[in-house]
């Protein structure tokens, strides 16, 4: 009897569990760590500009708000619409907001999907662009808005959203809509600053495309900011060195690679690139020593293992 009763219960409960599965995904805000001493319980970045959205243009409006705050004066919803709006989709893609940020010379940093990181960025004075689903999982209505404040006691966030200059949403309501957008959140800081919650690798990953796309000024500012914040990470110096190398400043490149070596003497790529910076200045024997160190550190590596022969080949090519 008890066994069949349990089975009955399951038969009743299972469809319910399945049906409400999405709605009952655990929310983060009820488990926020209490604000520590000196941490703001309430923030509102009132000076954040607002651009009331016209039809379907929440992407350009929200991005203009973010870029203006980071010091891009020429960013307006109209100019950005050309860069991000897709008429045939009546909306803007996340990828294109990121790409347009790069075009404005700013580094797009995606936050980790954590509610507390949102609050920490606001505490640091950075508005946060978020993706929300304002309807239902199966019947979505995707929307971009900018969070500009919160109040831990009122359990509210303040947004610049749509046609509302100051929209207050409860933590509960906001997080449900944001959760359906997979907690997608973008922060754009002025050059030389890093997002408060940034991790070194995540931030550097956001800077690398700036270098690849030869947006040198922004990439240099990004690597410098990273070098300052994470002095133990050699990658920032590798980035600065690689930009100097690519723009023909070999002496400067050498200096950056040497700094990377100083931070991590066992990093083969630092020795390898140092070798090339030296070779391009005509320091052939020093270059060879650096290449030998790269090879010694990673003899089996497809690239570093052949460091010396590759360097010699280049050297004879150049002396021809």
């Amino acid at each position, binding site marked *: 009897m008890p066994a069949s009763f349990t089975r009955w219960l399951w038969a009743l409960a299972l469809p319910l569990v399945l049906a409400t599965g999405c709605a009952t995904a655990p929310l983060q805000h009820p488990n926020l760590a209490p604000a520590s001493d000196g941490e703001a319980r309430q923030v509102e970045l009132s000076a954040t500009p607002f651009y009331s*959205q016209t*039809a*379907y*243009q*929440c*992407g350009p409006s929200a991005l203009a708000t973010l870029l203006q705050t980071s010091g891009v004066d020429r960013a307006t919803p109209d100019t950005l619409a*050309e*860069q*991000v709006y*897709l*008429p*045939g*989709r*009546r*909306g*803007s*893609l*996340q*990828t*294109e907001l*990121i*790409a*347009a940020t*790069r*075009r404005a010379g700013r580094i797009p940093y995606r936050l980790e999907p954590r509610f507390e990181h949102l609050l920490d960025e606001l505490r640091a004075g950075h508005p946060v662009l978020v*993706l929300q689903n*304002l*309807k239902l999982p199966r019947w*979505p*209505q*995707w*929307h*971009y*808005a900018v969070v500009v404040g919160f109040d831990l006691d009122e359990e509210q966030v303040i947004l610049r*959203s*749509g*046609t*509302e200059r100051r929209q207050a949403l409860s933590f509960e309501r906001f997080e449900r809509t944001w959760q359906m*957008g997979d907690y997608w959140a973008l922060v754009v800081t002025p050059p030389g600053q890093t997002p408060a919650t940034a991790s070194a690798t995540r931030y550097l990953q956001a800077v690398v*495309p700036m270098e*690849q*796309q030869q947006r040198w000024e922004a990439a240099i500012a990004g690597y410098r900011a990273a070098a300052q914040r994470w002095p133990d990470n050699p990658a920032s110096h590798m980035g600065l060195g690689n930009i100097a190398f690519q723009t023909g400043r070999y002496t400067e490149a050498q200096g950056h690679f040497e700094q990377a070596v100083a931070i991590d003497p066992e990093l083969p790529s630092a020795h390898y690139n140092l070798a090339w910076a030296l070779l391009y200045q005509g320091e052939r024997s020093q270059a060879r020593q650096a290449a030998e160190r790269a090879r010694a550190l990673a003899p*089996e590596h497809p690239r570093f293992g052949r460091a010396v022969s590759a360097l010699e080949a280049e050297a004879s090519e150049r002396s021809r």
Partner: protein
Amino acid sequence: MDTTLSPLRILIASLFVLVLAAVTPLHAQAGIVTTDEVVTEQTQAVEREQLLEKLDRDDVKAQLKHYGVDAEQAQERVAAMTDAEVLELQAGLDQAIAGGDAGLATLLLVVILVLLLT
């Protein structure tokens, strides 16, 4: 169940620990690359190559044009994307989330729901 340790068990356990302690540093000192690492590295290289072969910026440009972006802008928009981002959009720009509207429709939905439920 017997939870006390017999002398034999203790002996076996300590032998095990000793062997582990002896073997582990040797392994680390030798510094050889494990087969797993070699195979993983190969797989990653092949996967990367396969992905890059598929990479087609013109395809995404064409899709953007299809959705109403003019040719010159499409070119610049795609140029500001990374390889990974292009690949993602190639997989289906029509599937990607496009954030657009706010407000009014939600209100309508709420009204409909209220009407239905009451």
